[in-house]
């Protein structure tokens, strides 16, 4: 089946339960946002699907491919992940970074179609003029775009991003979300994104999964879910919800 399926996932650290028996399916296609208050377990859930954390209990599979170490290579061609913080010691140009995105396909020996894909990625993210600049000479926003371009070049069905908007200003955030939207709409990719800003989730996501205290509280469409009732039950706050067009908007 074409989706990400999570069954009975639990996660404990030093006696504290971070995730309790989570079972959910993330649909293929469109943009799915994982939201929830601080400490809900969103990043932990992300890390499990991204196979950054080993499974303690439960099962996760992506398009029927089980998430476990032996499927590592196949998974890297199926889903691409962008964690919250990426900083590395090696000096790379933008092009070199994006070329790494082709590694799951060519193991480092790039062929013509790999180079072509890199050029496509550069163009899609408007990075072509910066292609031969070193990453540390770019601004934070540009660097971030380069990283997204890299996972785009990985050419996977699924893209997972963990709070990518954290250090971006409003313009850069909107650009990135619009880009992800376009990837989902025009290229049929499935984007799963962890967000803490509920308004961006409401505006750009097709499907929301709400977590609280390590459990799935609700899931569904933003227009159905983002209500004052949700805010008071899950977030324990009594903010107002207004409608802008058909999109709900939480007044901060």
């Amino acid at each position, binding site marked *: 089946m074409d989706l990400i399926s999570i069954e009975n996932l639990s996660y404990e650290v030093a006696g504290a339960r971070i995730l309790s028996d989570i079972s959910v399916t993330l649909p293929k296609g469109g943009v799915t946002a994982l939201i929830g208050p601080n400490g809900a377990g969103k990043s932990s859930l992300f890390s499990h699907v*991204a*196979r*950054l954390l080993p499974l303690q209990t439960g099962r996760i599979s992506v398009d029927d491919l089980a998430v476990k*170490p032996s499927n*590592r*290579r196949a*998974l*890297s*061609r199926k889903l*691409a*992940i*962008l*964690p919250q913080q*990426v*900083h*590395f*010691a*090696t*000096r*790379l140009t933008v092009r070199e970074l994006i070329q*790494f*995105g082709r*590694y*799951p396909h060519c*193991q*480092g*020996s790039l062929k013509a179609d790999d180079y072509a894909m890199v050029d496509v990625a550069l163009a899609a993210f408007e990075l072509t003029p910066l292609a031969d600049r070193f990453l540390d000479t770019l601004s934070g926003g540009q660097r971030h775009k380069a990283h997204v371009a890299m*996972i785009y070049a*990985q050419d996977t069905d699924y893209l997972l991003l963990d709070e990518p908007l954290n250090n971006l200003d409003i313009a850069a955030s909107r650009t990135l979300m619009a880009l992800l939207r376009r990837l989902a709409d025009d290229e049929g990719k499935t984007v799963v994104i962890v967000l803490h800003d509920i308004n961006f989730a409401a505006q750009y996501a097709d499907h929301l999964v709400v977590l609280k205290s390590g459990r799935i509280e609700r899931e569904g469409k933003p227009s159905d879910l983002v209500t004052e009732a949700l805010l008071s039950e899950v977030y324990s706050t009594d903010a107002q919800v207004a409608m802008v067009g058909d999109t709900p908007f939480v007044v901060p």
Partner: protein
Amino acid sequence: MRARSTLICAMLLALSCVLFMTLGAKGNWDFVLWFRGRKLAALLIVGAAVSTATVLFQTISRNHILTPSIMGFDALYTLIVALVVFSIGAAGFNHLPSEFVFFAHISLLIGAALILFGTLIGQHRTDLMRMVLTGIIFGVLFRSLSSFIYRMIDPSEFATIQVNSYARFNYIDLNLLWISAGLTFVTLSLSWQMRRQLDVLGLGFEMATNLGEPVARRQKQALILVAILVAVSTALVGPVAFLGLLVVSIARLISPNETHAVLIPLSALIAGIVLVAGQTILERVLGLSTPLAVVIDFVGGFVFLTLLLRKGWI
């Protein structure tokens, strides 16, 4: 640009080797060839082993100011020697055949390295830092223990057991050359084969996992190679703390490209130049009696500090 750097270094190395062999050579040419040739081979082997071990280690630890030699593996060997001497006496120890001692030395070092690396319980950098620090402290501990044991054995002597605190490039046991050469060659080929995977590893745990690499396993593989290389070079000439650092820092400086396909051979070349040219200059040109290792540690350390301060290199 980088091809040119490598080419220049290769030529410099060739020049250094020629000078090493010919400068101040007296007497029978056959003898000189044999005697100096073996020493040259030893220097080249040690250079390549140390530089490659450092490159691999820096990639795994994602840090450009570390080197595996600082983890004091040699100190463990010194301690074992002290214990052996304590039990069977110095004379008994000197009777042991050198090949046996060499193999025991290498096995011990590899074993210790693996145990130490086995404490690497996570991919988090903190664990790696802690492991390196542990290695260093164990080095201090073992050195102090050895000093302690020697004092217990013979306290009347002013314990001048410098216990190989510096490498001796001058008195290399050339019997062990073939074994070292073989081991180094095999390990270097394996490292070379891993070069692309090492590039990916250098991107960090998350990115490497994203691209499908088994990070923990690759780290252990690379660390085993590091252990062997460090063991061989230490067994052959003793501890060489800053040689790797010095050489790899220079390589990074002159080559803008940091892929392992370039870094590994370039560092090896530079290491060869430093050792061969260094030994030649020190011995033949300046006629100094200071051991090369002391000079390298001093100069290497100084260069490294300057780099650290200027570039804030990590």
